[in-house]
């Protein structure tokens, strides 16, 4: 008899089947509800209609004036423009606010004034300033991504182990050296958390910005679907927004894993 017994933990069959079953039921119920006319087809489109439109939109410009991948490409451009600008401004600002008292003293009050204002509320002012073109939308997305970047970088620096800082001081490190060699590396996991959160914020704000003022993009497609009373286009737009967002999220997750491979959490 051996000292160790092998324990096999088996997932019950029901647990494997239930997820598939629940999604399948969802789609079938949706299809039936629309087909039988319980919900009128001016309010909701059946999944099959949406799928049809999906393939149709790759070749057909009507009625919103652009192909599906063109809409998606415009949205991705806007989202990434705002996202990278938010990272470029927010992360250094947050890191500096976490370590340098002067930076925190100067930036904190302004940040606290801006923070509670939802980025969506900036849309009218942005239209006054930039019109409805690309810069305006990038500005709104930038505002949305900025707040999580600053907060996460700030908290990341603040969570640096104080013992390490005291040790570095004992060995005569300057403020700048401590910041560069201790605070930034220890804030990295939080910073990468910010990448994901900021992306989600940017993507939400993108839709908001495009709902109000745009002439292309996925959010614009949703609005056009409502104006033309085409629920299949609204649903397709929503699914594309969700799908693209989830896809970008997965890519960032991969990048994060690759870059953070050597760092202990």
């Amino acid at each position, binding site marked *: 008899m051996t000292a160790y017994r092998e324990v096999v933990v088996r997932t019950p069959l*029901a*647990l494997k089947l*239930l*997820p*598939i*079953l*629940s*999604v399948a039921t*969802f789609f079938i119920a949706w299809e039936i509800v629309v087909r039988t006319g319980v919900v009128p087809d*001016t*309010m*909701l489109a059946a999944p099959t209609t949406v799928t049809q439109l999906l393939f149709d939109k790759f070749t057909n410009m009507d009625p919103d004036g652009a192909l599906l991948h063109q809409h998606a490409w415009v949205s991705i451009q806007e989202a990434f423009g705002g996202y990278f600008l938010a990272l470029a401004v927010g992360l250094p600002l947050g890191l500096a606010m976490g370590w340098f*008292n*002067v930076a*925190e*003293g*100067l*930036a*904190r*009050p*302004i940040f606290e*004034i801006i923070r*509670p*204002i*939802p*980025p*969506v*509320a*900036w849309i*009218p*002012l942005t*239209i*006054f*300033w930039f019109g409805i073109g690309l810069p305006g939308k990038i500005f709104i997305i930038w505002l949305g991504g900025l707040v999580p970047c600053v907060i996460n970088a*700030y*908290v990341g620096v*603040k*969570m640096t182990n*104080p*013992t390490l800082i005291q040790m570095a001081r004992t060995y005569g490190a300057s403020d700048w050296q401590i910041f560069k060699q201790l605070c930034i590396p220890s804030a990295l996991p939080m910073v990468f958390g910010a990448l994901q959160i900021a992306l989600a914020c940017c*993507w*939400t704000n993108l*839709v*908001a910005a495009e*709902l*109000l003022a745009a002439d292309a993009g996925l959010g614009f497609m*949703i*609005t056009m679907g*409502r104006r033309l009373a085409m629920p299949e286009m*609204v*649903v397709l*737009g*929503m*699914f594309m*927004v*969700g*799908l693209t*967002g*989830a896809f970008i*999220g997965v890519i960032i997750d991969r990048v994060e894993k690759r870059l953070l491979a050597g760092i202990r959490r």
Partner: protein
Amino acid sequence: MSQEATCNAASSSIANETVGQVVDRGPLNLGRILTNRWFLHTVSIVAFFSLWDLLARSDVLGGGSSALARPHEVLEQLVVLTREELAELTLWGHVWASTQRVVVGFSIAAAIAVPLGLFMALNRYVNAVVKPLFDLLKPMPPISWISISILWFGIGETSKVFIIVLGTFVPCLLNAYNGVRLVEPELYDVVRMLGGKRRDEILHVCFPASFPAIFAGLQISLSIAWTCVLAAELVSARSGLGYIIVQGMNLSQPAMVIGGMAVIAAAAWGTTLLVTALERKLCPWKRKIAGL
């Protein structure tokens, strides 16, 4: 002598490694004043408002007075709005209209999502049914539902409450779910060792330990609720703070737009304080986290 003082300061804490609160008063020189926190805060706020005023008076942003209002004009506009009626409501009426929507939507979402999240974490069969559907709907931003909710419910109150419910549902559910899942397993072991049953585990370990996470979820969803109500009101409304902003935009009155933004910030801040106070009352065992 000085060592004694340090010891006294440190003796109030439990660990022997903590740094005592020793305030050393150096001479009052220029550098010390310049790096004082309150001095810097004042400088920053004064600089912010004067820069704003300067921008509003100059023509940098284009469009002159229709691009940005001066700070005192915003204040005057707000005072006017509290006295005169805009679409049959004063400023307080609009604040109340928005707050009502947020409170109703937020309560509905919290009442459904938190128990559902707890249930999903406690029972893996419920989890297997609900999780895939939730994962399917989660990546769609709540704002993208605005169009379809207008198709379904028209432009009345229902569609706005629906958006808020959808937006606040996700963080409420996720935090309740993760709050239970991330409970330290040692705590369960303790209860089991003391002879507790499954019911004791849930009542005395799961719920208290997941409370802080649930409240963090409520805080997040509250700020999302304000974003959602605003977006819904910007698209279509006859009352609410979003309506004030839209009116300001249509009339080209930046003072009204900025006034509306300021009131929203204040309202969002107020509701956040309320939830924080509630949290302190309901779960005093939560650890204090320094910083933000």
